[in-house]
């Protein structure tokens, strides 16, 4: 079974397989990125079962719209990530989700983020990886709101009561920090 052996392909191979509608592309993308994508989705919507449903929808959408991916405009993961984020944010803003998850209403998200941040992003959830501890909280909170919670940077500025320029700078600084750590 495909689940027993993890498949890893280069980005070019992945894109080629996806555009030619070889299911191996989805298998490889799943093995490589499903956990990362679920990490993003589950920060936007809870519970984890709902996040997994959305992850499934994400891969179906990746499969069905693979032809629309344009490699010149960005990395494949960024494209997949945006699909996952959009599905999750749509769900977050949908009426049925709001009705059943009032305690996770968008207005409470800042506290929620802070809480998550302190316990290393859902520490009790299985499969979580090491947190990058070097990031200063005031930088990461802005980046996380935009990257993980579906806020626009304008909304984040309002929410944090910061000037828009400051929000932009903090996002850039946070990403610079990340680059320093990863590269």
């Amino acid at each position: 079974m495909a689940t027993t052996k993890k498949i890893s392909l280069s980005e070019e191979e992945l894109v080629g397989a996806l555009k030619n509608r070889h299911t191996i592309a989805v298998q490889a993308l799943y093995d490589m990125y499903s956990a990362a994508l679920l990490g993003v989705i589950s920060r936007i919507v809870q519970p984890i079962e709902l996040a997994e449903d959305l992850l499934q929808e994400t891969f179906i959408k990746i499969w069905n719209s693979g032809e629309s991916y344009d490699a010149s405009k960005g990395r494949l993961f960024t494209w997949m990530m945006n699909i996952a984020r959009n599905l999750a944010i749509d769900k977050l803003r949908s009426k049925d989700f709001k009705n059943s998850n009032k305690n996770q209403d968008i207005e409470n998200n800042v506290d929620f983020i802070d809480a998550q941040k302190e316990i290393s992003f859902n520490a009790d959830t299985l499969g979580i990886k090491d947190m990058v501890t070097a990031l200063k909280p005031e930088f990461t909170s802005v980046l996380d709101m935009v990257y993980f919670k579906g806020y626009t940077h304008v909304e984040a500025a309002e929410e944090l009561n910061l000037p828009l320029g400051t929000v932009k700078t903090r996002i850039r600084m946070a990403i610079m920090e990340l680059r320093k750590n990863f590269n």
Partner: protein
Amino acid sequence: MEEVNAYIESGILELYVLVQLTVQEQQEVEEMAARYPEVKQEIAAIELAMEQYALQNSIEPSAELKDQIMNRLSDNETIVPVTAEVEQVIKPTPVVPIQQYNEYEAKIRILRFALAACVAMLVVSAIALYSAHNELGQAKTEILALNLDKQKFASTTSYLTEENTDLRKIADMADDPDWKVVKLAGTKMDPAAKMVVYWHTSGQHVMVDNSKMALPANDQSHQYQLWALVNGKPVDLGVFDVKSDTTQILLAMKEIAGAQAFAVTLEKRGGSVSPTMDQMIVMGGV
């Protein structure tokens, strides 16, 4: 170069990767990336950093999720081409004929209406013909009846004309002193019998008036015979019939120059040379 660096440092590329830009701003960034490799490299670096950040925050999905997804994909795989094939195979054959069918159906419907109209017209025509035939028959019988009436009228007219002529003659007689009106009375053979004879003394005409005659009708083998008594001798003035449906009023008899009396006897058909005296029914003197 400084311009590019300023662009990079503005933070717009981070917002681009985070999908925070308007479509117009996105296009602007993409144009810059296409023009300046530094911009493109910077974007890739940001993307990679975010990718790593996401990987750092991974959450492993439950084990069965991958199979679920792959099953859904293979379902899609098998279903999509099959439906496409089915559409290719089925559509061209039935869809076109359906249009033709619709045309045929429309034509058949029109023909059906036409047929119904024809039948209706036939029925109407038959009824009209039948009534016309009936009326023609009625007209024919009416014509026959009218013809009959006309004939009756013509005969009545001719009868009336004749009668009128006779009556005028009778009326004229009163003004003409030469006309003698001789009334004949019944004998012992039939006392109720009577008749009138008109005699023109100068013209010697003798006429019998049927309208003033009261004689029993004679049978087929007998006829009445009128006699004039001239100096005691009977002179034959001709025979006549008495019928119930006689139309003629005046009946001209043989002429006589002088007579003292007239008498009528019942003789055998055609008359006798001399009167049978015991068969004399009426007699009257001038």
